[in-house]
């Protein structure tokens, strides 16, 4: 691998590895809460932080982290007050953050590092060894908090009202989550840029959401997908000369489209097979019922009828009742006849 011979590419790949792992681990809670745009809003706020860092000649990354965390806490407090809707609060952050960043950066003295593009779109190859150390610290901190509080964060994201009713510290957990998002934003700034940060948090989770059966599975899957697209996107961008951020995000979206298509195809096939099986019994001489001559077999929450050695479960579809085949011990593949299946 010639690409690994360059120090800047080694650092770039390490950075993308950390980002790919961390962004979905936090993003999945945002997806769960349907608050996908929080990452975007905090990304914009981080730009103001960057600008302040440049203006005061302190470390832009540190200043961005402080600004994003403050913004995160602020937005949760506003949401908790309940007066302004979270939506409006987000919008104010969005526009205030980016406007503040652009205006402040324009005030910076000539000669300072005011490369706006690098922050907006990422500049992964400029990652320094010191940056890597900061990134590693953020990665460890975020993963540790998710490991420690993940179940609580899930609880609050899943049903905030229940969490509040039974006495979970909802506000504190929301602030923790927002702070995690802020940290992730700053971590991802170099790799994907402030404008595309949300994509790496959300898209892998959206893929996982399509195929996972449990939340835990979805979390691991999203992290895996994030890791793969992040590292391979960075590698690809080296060979194609395209910006790393856009390449990674396009790759993630490609994965999403492929998986979504595969899921849709599988469902269509299952539906077709189901309909075909229904046709076999379209010419069924009668509707099963008490005393129809077939043995009734209770099966979970419904009754099957033994029809020449296989079990029939009445099932209502758009075109009328047909019969699903239910094995003697198999769980029903779909819901049997319920409302109006007369």
């Amino acid at each position, binding site marked *: 691998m010639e690409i690994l011979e360059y120090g800047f590419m080694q650092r770039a790949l390490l950075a993308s590895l950390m980002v790919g792992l961390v962004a979905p681990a936090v993003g999945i809670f945002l997806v769960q809460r349907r608050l996908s745009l929080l990452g975007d809003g905090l990304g914009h706020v981080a730009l103001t932080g960057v600008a302040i860092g440049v203006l005061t000649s302190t470390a832009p990354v540190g200043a961005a982290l402080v600004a994003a965390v403050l913004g995160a806490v602020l937005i949760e407090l506003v949401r908790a007050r309940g007066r302004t809707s979270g939506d409006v609060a987000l919008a104010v952050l969005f526009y205030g953050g980016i406007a503040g960043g652009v205006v402040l950066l324009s005030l910076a003295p000539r000669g300072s590092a005011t490369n706006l593009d690098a922050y907006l779109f990422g500049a992964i190859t400029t990652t320094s060894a010191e940056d890597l150390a900061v990134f590693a610290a953020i990665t460890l901190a975020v993963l540790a908090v998710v490991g420690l509080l993940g179940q609580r964060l899930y609880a609050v994201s899943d049903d905030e009202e229940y969490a509040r009713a039974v006495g979970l510290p909802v506000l504190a957990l929301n602030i923790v989550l927002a702070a995690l998002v802020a940290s992730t934003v700053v971590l991802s700034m170099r790799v994907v840029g402030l404008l595309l940060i949300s994509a790496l948090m959300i898209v892998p989770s959206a893929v996982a959401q399509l195929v996972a059966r449990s939340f835990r599975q979805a979390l691991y899957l999203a992290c895996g997908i994030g890791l793969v697209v992040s590292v391979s996107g960075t590698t690809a961008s080296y060979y194609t000369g395209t910006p790393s951020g856009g390449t990674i995000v396009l790759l993630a979206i490609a994965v999403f489209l492929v998986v979504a298509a595969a899921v849709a195809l599988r469902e269509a096939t299952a539906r077709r097979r189901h309909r075909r099986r229904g046709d076999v019994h379209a010419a069924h001489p009668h509707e099963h019922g008490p005393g129809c001559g077939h043995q009734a077999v209770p099966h979970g929450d419904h009754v099957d009828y033994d029809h020449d050695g296989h079990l029939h479960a009445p099932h209502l579809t758009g075109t009328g009742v047909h019969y699903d085949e239910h094995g003697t011990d198999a*769980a029903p593949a779909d*819901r049997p006849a*319920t409302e109006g299946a007369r």
Partner: protein
Amino acid sequence: MTARSPGDVAVRLHDASIGYDDVPIVARVDLTVRHGEAIAVLGSNGSGKTTLARGLLGLAPVLGGDVEILGAPVGRLRDPGRIGYVPQRHTVSGAVPATVREVVSVGRLARLGLFRRLRAADRVAVGEAVAAVGLADRMEEPIASLSGGQQRRVLVARALAAQPELLIMDEPTAGVDAASQDALAEVLARVSAAGTTLLVVTHETGPLASVLARAVVVDQGRISYDGPLAGAASGSGEHHCGPVADAGRPGYRLDQPTVTARPVRSLGGGR
């Protein structure tokens, strides 16, 4: 956890008003529920039953008067995890798939403080709660793949898993079939006998009538009846016309699917 004599007060509302946006829905209500009591909250649609329950839980603002729950003003409860709650909302809402086990496990979390993890005893409680609502074999399935009534039962299990001192249920039997209602009545009888205070909002006491001794009827935000369930007036009409509480009213409960019944569940899953 805490030793209590049955006479202690679990819930006390004194001249309490609860509402939204400064508009009281429940107005100037007095109500006292002692530990270990099992009480039905009846009343017509929109009378304020859910608002009352949400006020107790700190989910709807108390606009006036005093509301005390488990000995502390609303929202000031010291050790969390002493309350179980079944919301009226039908389903679980999260966008990411979650299994029955994951949803019900949330019921245990509040007891564990901020950092402790679920232990063997917690997993046993989760398993028992899921078994109590008859879904033990669906434990690892994504909740979205269950029917509406089954999802409802998962939310009941989540509240049971907490093994709470006070269990507030908002129409736990809505959309739940007769067999599962019977099973729920059995479970509630058991936790009630063990000392749990029950507050159950419902339109049809049905099989729960054997558990819920006392009833309050909410009528346009006020309590119009407080006494034995058997004497409670109809919650579904404007006028109080005769007892509703005769649980076994024929025709209300459809028979559970038996060998002779037609293959239809009693109450539809979704609403």
